[in-house]
């Protein structure tokens, strides 16, 4: 283990430069995010991820945000285990009927001020799964959404851009 650790010390870091914020996301946020509330939280946001019915593709790319290349925590974000510790809910999937109540409860358990980021094409309007007896639709059909990040699944860089826009919006 010492050898691996030592090699890590002398090698250049893998972490990539910040991709910058997404201007389209910023425009969407301008209408949604309360400036005063945002200032109170400073530059640190705690994220609770909620899979409301996804195929798990979005989760894989959200996981990738924690790897050495994207290193989400350097921007002040961290994933937390409980909605009670969260400022941001990152919600994926078409919301299934079976997950609607769980999503509502998770939202209600998150203290204000809070934001909801809907991740992936399914989270916008149900995507390819819309029209099914088992699907409610997009995330905004169940809880208010501040920002959508598109993609099937969105690349980690797109997720970063969207989240950075949320952070920069002061």
């Amino acid at each position, binding site marked *: 283990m010492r050898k691996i650790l030592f090699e890590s010390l002398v090698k250049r870091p893998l972490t990539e430069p910040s991709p910058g914020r997404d201007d389209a996301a910023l425009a969407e946020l301008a209408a949604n995010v309360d400036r005063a509330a945002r200032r109170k939280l400073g530059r640190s946001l705690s994220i609770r991820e909620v*899979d409301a019915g996804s195929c798990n593709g979005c989760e894989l790319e959200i996981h*990738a945000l924690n*790897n050495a290349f994207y290193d989400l925590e350097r921007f002040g974000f961290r994933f937390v285990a409980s909605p009670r510790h969260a400022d941001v809910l990152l919600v994926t*999937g078409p919301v299934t009927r079976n997950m609607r109540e*769980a999503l509502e409860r998770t939202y209600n358990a998150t203290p204000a001020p809070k934001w909801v980021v809907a991740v992936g094409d399914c989270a916008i309007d149900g995507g390819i*799964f819309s029209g099914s*007896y*088992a699907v409610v639709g997009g995330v905004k059909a169940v809880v208010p959404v501040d920002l959508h990040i598109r993609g099937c699944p969105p690349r980690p860089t797109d997720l970063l851009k969207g989240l950075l826009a949320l952070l920069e919006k002061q």
Partner: protein
Amino acid sequence: MPTLIDKFSEARRVEHHRPWPRVVVGEVTWRVAARELADGQATLLGLWGDTDAVHMAMLAEPSGEIAVVTYECSNGTFPSVGAVHPPAIRLERAIHTLYGLEPLGLPDQRPWLDLGFWDVAHPLGARNAAPPERARYEFLPAEGESLHQIAVGPVHAGIIEPGHFRFTVNGETVVRLEQRLGYVHKGIESLMAGAPLDKAARLAGRVSGDSTVAYALAFAHAVEAALEVTVPPRAVYLRAFMAELERLANHFGDIGAICNDASFSIMHAHCGILRERVLRTADSCFNHRLMMDGIVPGGLAEEPLLLGASKIKALIAEIRGLFPKLVELYDNTASLQERTVSTGIAKPALVKQFGAGGYVGRASGRAFDARRAPGYAPYDQLKFDVPVLNEGDVNARVWVRIREVEQSLSLIEQIVDHLPDGPARVEVQPAEGMREGLGLVEAFRGDVLVWLRLDGDRVARCHLRDASWFQWPLLEAAVEDNIVADFPLCNKSFNCSYSGHDL
């Protein structure tokens, strides 16, 4: 030696079902088939509903011979297979919930997948309005002094899929775990019905995002079998290249995540780097990190970009440089071994009974790998081993995956060296009337089965069975007598799919 199908003497063979036969049987033969499963003469591959019928796919081992047996439910009922063969129980509960067909004699009558939030009852069958009042879901009891319950989920603490786990524990020790799944049920089979082939292929690729290549491939195999399409050799090789990249990415991600669940984060960090390298290679070849929608019936959606052999060889060289050091670190860290060795044992007898595939099966002595038997191209032309261990613990599942990483690297090398030239796609011509096909593909977590019936250029019915159906119940058994704190390790070492199971 009589073949599987010979045993069903009075069976009526169905036309246009490929590549394996489907036969319609009466009650006596249906019961004989169930008994074959219960006696371990054959393995249950799948059991699913249809309009007024149930189909059961059976596998003879080790030959890999497959047969589909159909029972026509003239009065809306069928003799329960689960009554004599427990691995069928959840499948029959799902058939009853989705189709309304009643399995006579099924020991567990509780609904499955339907958690009481749908507007319709039996959504793939009669589609009645759901009753306003439903019976409370009763978890199985555990009795004794000093027991208490821990309810977990559907929203879990990590970035994972939703499901409910009900633990009954005595102090630290798990006495019983019961799963309740269905939270991510999206009604995929109802969306499949009537879908044109291109939409159906996209849906198949979104059953379980981590296995999108395997699902798209199994779906394509089923369509190509039904329509007797021969795929060009280049596409066959490129598909295997994609499937092995997917296997590598998942194995790296999960080996790291298992160690992370024992708080050994350096493995997680380095395995995460290897996973990212694989995904970036996939992205540079297929313009999608998970290679979604890359495989379509007839071949590949597009000829890959920049498929430079040197770039792929460089990836393999990098992995071969780093991975052995990580394996050594895993194997020589006592605090980590203390957590993984002898934890969460899946007993070989149960694994055989349930026909559990993937690393769950192969870590407990079941050598099944769909790439080998029944087998499909190009694996018959490539050299690879199927690693098998017998311990059945978390450590064995990790080791099977370590060995499979080595095999996948070798397979990718062989594919790159022998990649045929030519087109990567042929046009798929729809046939007149009904055509049926079956595909069985080895995903990273086990065999994925896709059965479908095509009506002209549309899907009339498509059933997709994830490997998890036969692995989830074994997780319940494997955590018994383990401490609650080891559940994450056990769970991650199985890594069953929620979305693939819930559909």
